[in-house]
């Protein structure tokens, strides 16, 4: 049964090739069937493997297979090989499952686009690369997927390449990601060389894990830091998050698939995958959690003031990714992955819902021109409600379980992690607020659209609403794989991931042990004490969520005048937040203009005047150039050329004759 794990990435690859070569000639229906079936086939294989896993004892749940040696040079060897274990199968299921639904949705959404085959070609290629990323059995192949999804992201953000803003956004995404990849690459180099110093030359996960103990603490710290730089690029964390909001230029299903459900979570996956390295570097773990939580609150605050529905969701994604990093940063890898999964459901759904709204509103994305859509597009509305409730953390819905797990783990890590917990809790309140602000602004109140737009408002076709409904269902039940023990659950997902993260978790517990003041205090009261603390926190976060929702209700349903007055009163503050703290402008002034300034000086002054000038000057001094020039300029080009050829041929001929003799 090991033998077919490579099929998972192969199906989308086949779909990609078919549509790439024949897409333009095939009828639209065939194009979409090919693309969707490719995903579905991969999904089926993933499910099959999942069920096989259930029949095996946990420690045997690893399938690994090398296909061929890719790059071999001296001690260096990287294979094309796959590894399926509980972590990668969850990723595969999310990527192919949610991916399939988004493919189906796209059939409706992109129906009238002239680039229809191109769209599905890119989309299949993306899924292929994403599956390579999550099923690779070594770090270099992961990097292939990593850059590959970056390419697809570039192509799909800039899908409507005639729009300058789209082309710019694609380029920005690629370049910012490359900055992160700079760190990733150096991480690979350092890991390879550091292990090599001990005679182990490998990048294979299993091998690296087995030999990780050879690494010095400082090496592990540096390596994980470098990898994390890569993660901040791909997963849009501070300070490299700036590309993701712009990425909303792409078609909305793309935002859903790539920029919410799958690709942007690659950084979280990478940290979880390399958990054995991160566990050796407690400072970097703390850094991961810190960057995560700062990103979470920072982008949540920007989300408060945005009016473009996709932008709100984009900042929300950045913020939620921050939570995932808090999870993996405190060593709760399973919680991070759990949130990754539930987030894929509800955020994927939110984007698709937004797409459905935009579809209905003839392309309008500004919330201020919406309102009152509740009755007109009820399926979109209700599925959107489910997603909002899930992300806000209302008990019983998926987001509640996963987010709470992260908060609890952060809290129980104690010490400096308490600050992280506190910030994360506040950000959770902000999340609930901005999501319901979005919900109310879009679907409730009076419709503020122009008459013409109003006239066209219609519910999306079934091909779009059915994926919405399925995702809405998943946003509800998705959380039940991770119900904590305290609520009588078994936290199945944590158990399932145990073989991958088991050792690492203990490691962290040891590392954080000294700092663990508060939970120790609870622990002294016995198991029930810790339990009651967990319960208290849970109740607290539910209260926070409801406060957020209530404020949104007061401000946007009851007294819509208040936000306006607030904006007038604190116009300075609002301007700063609305303009995203001017980070783009600051980066632009420092880095972009800096680079261009340097470029101009180097090109126009240094290269053309200093270097070239010096050399031309020398040549002129020699006078040699002068004489040659005179001859060439007086019309002897032909004769000169001919003379040279003939002369050369004579020389060669002579030499050849000598050889023959």
């Amino acid at each position: 049964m090991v033998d077919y794990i490579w099929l998972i990435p192969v199906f989308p690859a086949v779909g990609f090739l078919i549509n790439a070569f024949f897409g333009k000639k095939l009828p639209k229906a065939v194009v979409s069937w090919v693309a969707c079936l490719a995903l579905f086939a991969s999904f089926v294989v993933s499910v099959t493997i999942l069920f096989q896993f259930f029949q095996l004892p946990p420690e045997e749940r690893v399938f690994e297979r090398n296909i061929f040696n890719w790059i071999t040079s001296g001690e260096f060897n990287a294979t094309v090989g796959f590894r399926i274990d509980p972590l990668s199968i969850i990723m595969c299921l999310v990527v192919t499952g949610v991916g399939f639904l988004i493919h189906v949705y796209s059939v409706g959404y992109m129906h009238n686009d002239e680039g229809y085959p191109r769209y599905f070609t890119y989309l299949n290629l993306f899924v292929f690369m994403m599956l390579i990323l999550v099923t690779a059995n070594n770090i270099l192949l992961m990097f292939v997927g990593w850059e590959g999804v970056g390419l697809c992201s570039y192509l799909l953000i800039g899908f409507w390449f005639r729009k300058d803003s789209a082309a710019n956004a694609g380029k920005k995404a690629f370049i910012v990601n490359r900055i992160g990849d700079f760190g990733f690459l150096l991480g690979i180099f350092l890991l390879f060389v550091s292990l090599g110093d001990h005679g182990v030359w490998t990048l294979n996960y299993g091998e690296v894990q087995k030999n990780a103990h050879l690494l010095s603490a400082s090496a592990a710290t540096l390596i994980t830091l470098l990898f994390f730089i890569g993660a901040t690029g791909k997963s849009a964390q501070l300070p490299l998050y700036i590309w993701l909001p712009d990425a909303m230029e792409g078609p909305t299903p793309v935002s859903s698939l790539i920029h919410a459900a799958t690709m942007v979570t690659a950084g979280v996956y990478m940290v979880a995958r390399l958990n054995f390295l991160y566990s050796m570097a407690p400072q970097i773990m703390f850094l991961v959690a810190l960057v995560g939580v700062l990103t979470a609150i920072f982008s949540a605050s920007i989300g408060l003031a945005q009016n473009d529905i996709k932008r709100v969701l984009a900042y929300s994604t950045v913020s939620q990714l921050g939570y995932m990093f808090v999870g993996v940063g405190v060593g709760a890898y399973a919680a991070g992955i759990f949130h990754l999964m539930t987030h894929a459901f509800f955020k994927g759904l939110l984007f698709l819902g937004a797409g459905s709204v935009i579809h209905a509103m003839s392309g309008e994305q500004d919330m201020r021109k919406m309102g009152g859509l509740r009755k007109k597009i009820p399926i979109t509305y209700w599925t959107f409600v489910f997603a909002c409730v899930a992300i806000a953390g209302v008990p019983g819905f998926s987001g509640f379980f996963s987010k709470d797990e992260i908060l609890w783990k952060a809290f129980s890590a104690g010490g400096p992690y308490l600050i992280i917990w506190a910030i994360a809790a506040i950000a959770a309140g902000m999340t609930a607020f901005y999501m319901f602000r979005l919900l109310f602004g879009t679907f409730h109140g009076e419709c503020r659209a122009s008459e013409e737009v109003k006239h066209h408002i219609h519910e999306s076709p079934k091909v779009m609403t059915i994926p919405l409904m399925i995702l809405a269902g998943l946003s509800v039940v998705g959380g039940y794989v991770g119900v904590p023990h305290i609520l009588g659950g078994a936290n199945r997902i944590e158990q399932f991931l145990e073989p991958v993260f088991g050792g690492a978790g203990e490691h962290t517990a040891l590392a954080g042990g000294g700092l663990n003041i508060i939970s120790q205090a609870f622990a002294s009261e016995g198991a029930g004490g810790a339990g009651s603390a967990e319960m208290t926190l849970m109740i607290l976060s539910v209260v926070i969520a409801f406060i957020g929702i209530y404020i949104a209700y007061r401000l946007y349903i009851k007294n819509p005048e208040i936000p306006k007055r607030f904006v007038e009163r604190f116009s300075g503050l609002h301007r700063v937040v609305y303009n995203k703290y001017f980070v783009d402008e600051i980066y632009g002034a420092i880095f972009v203009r800096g680079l261009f300034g340097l470029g101009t000086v180097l090109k126009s002054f240094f290269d053309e005047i200093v270097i070239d000038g010096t050399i031309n000057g020398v040549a002129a001094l020699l006078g040699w150039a002068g004489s040659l020039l005179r001859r060439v300029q007086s019309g002897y080009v032909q004769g000169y050329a001919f003379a040279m050829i003939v002369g050369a041929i004579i020389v060669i001929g002579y030499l050849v004759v000598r050889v023959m003799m």
Partner: protein
Amino acid sequence: MGSSCFPILSLLIYVPLLGAVTLLFVRREHEAYIKGFTLVLSLIEFALSIPLYFYFNEKTVGMQFVERRAWFPEWGITYFLGIDGISLLLILLTTFLTVLCVLCSWRAIEKRVKEYYITFLFLETAMVGTLCSLDLVLFYIFWELMLIPMYLLIGVWGGPKRVYAAIKFFLFTMAGSVLMLLAIFALYFQFYKATGTYTFDVLQLYNGHIPVSTQYWLFAAFALSFAIKVPMFPVHTWLPDAHTEAPTAGSVILAGVLLKMGTYGFLRFAIPLFPAAAHAAIPIISILALVGIIYGAIVSMMQPDLKRLIAFSSVSHLGYVMLGMFAFNMQGMEGSIYQMLNHGVSTGGLFLIVGMLYERRHTRMIADFGGLATPMPILAIFFMIVTLSSVALPGTNGFVGEFLILLGAFRANMLYGILGTTGVVLGAVYMFWMFQRVMFGEVKKEENRKLVDLGKREVLILCSVVFFIVLMGVYPKMFFKKMDTSVEGFLKFVKERNAYYMASEVMPVKVVLETVKKPAE
């Protein structure tokens, strides 16, 4: 040293020359025949070079397909040809690119068609000869012979500033060559002084003894000559002019093969002949290479002219080649050689594409384009793939080379590795920005609205480029297995020789000669 009875290398060298001579007797009116003949001949040449790959024994270190005849025995000059895994791949690159060059000149060249193709075939002879020569005099002859046709290609068939560019090209390379010639003679007499024999045989010279202080001078002369060809910062300024003015095929062959002659020269001559000096030069060369990588990328970004942009990107890419080579480890060295091939394929591809645009619009200015993906969707696909190869996206050939180079550099010196890796970011900046300005956005110029997309011939040319981009990116083993043994042997040899020289600095020369010469044989 394996010796084959069939002089395949000589055949490869003289088939194009024979073709050139034949063309002399064809009347210039028969343009179609001339083109067809040249195409067939270049295809034959390519076909002839393929068996080299299959018959090349990848398990032995020594030179293969060796041909050795006495030539001027009184002076120690021999007609000595042979290849190892390194030159093998470069020869294949040369014969492959020549076919593409003939194909892409089909419509681009309208004046002096006959002379053009003669020149081109002549150039191929010189290039293959340079790569096969194992005698310094023979090498020098071919090396200089490459200059003439390239000079003519730029000077006769080039753009408006062709004369300036051609002369600049000529003067730069000549200046280097003259120094190299002097160094060759110095080496020759030095060897005689140490051993009592006169020889220009490179393999014999490898094992001679050159006092380290002399090595510095000789290495400097060789290195300067090769560095100009590469070109390394700061002697790169001839390249943008030469590329800009050269016809498309000239640019392709210049970037694809001629620049590699510089890096190849380091591998075949400068490093193994003067290993102690080469080791001493590691910091200088590495730093110049790094400056080349970063400087080339930044200056490239600011170029308004497509060809100049690609020319500076070559400076950056060749910087990688030099950086990897002077890491003196397997990864760096193999990455470096692979990058030579990659650069030939992808930069060759970029010049071909610019040539196709030029044929349609008679401009190379980025500002004159914009939005071309709309009228030319097929070109857009090819251009994208070649661009990705140039920015070293995993899955393309560029990644394999760049990754190994940077890994090798990192192993040798972390700082070099880190600085070199910044090129990965900068490369994306200048390539993607250029691509966007040319291909994306609305079509703003009326002339661009009705551009015709690629024809069959052009698609065929670019398909072959893309084929190698993907093959070399996905299954590099096909190429690595041919050079592994050679490179390993090379590194081992250079290391031993360097150790020998290090020891000789301490011990009296004669003692060292006695003790070390045996294992070095």
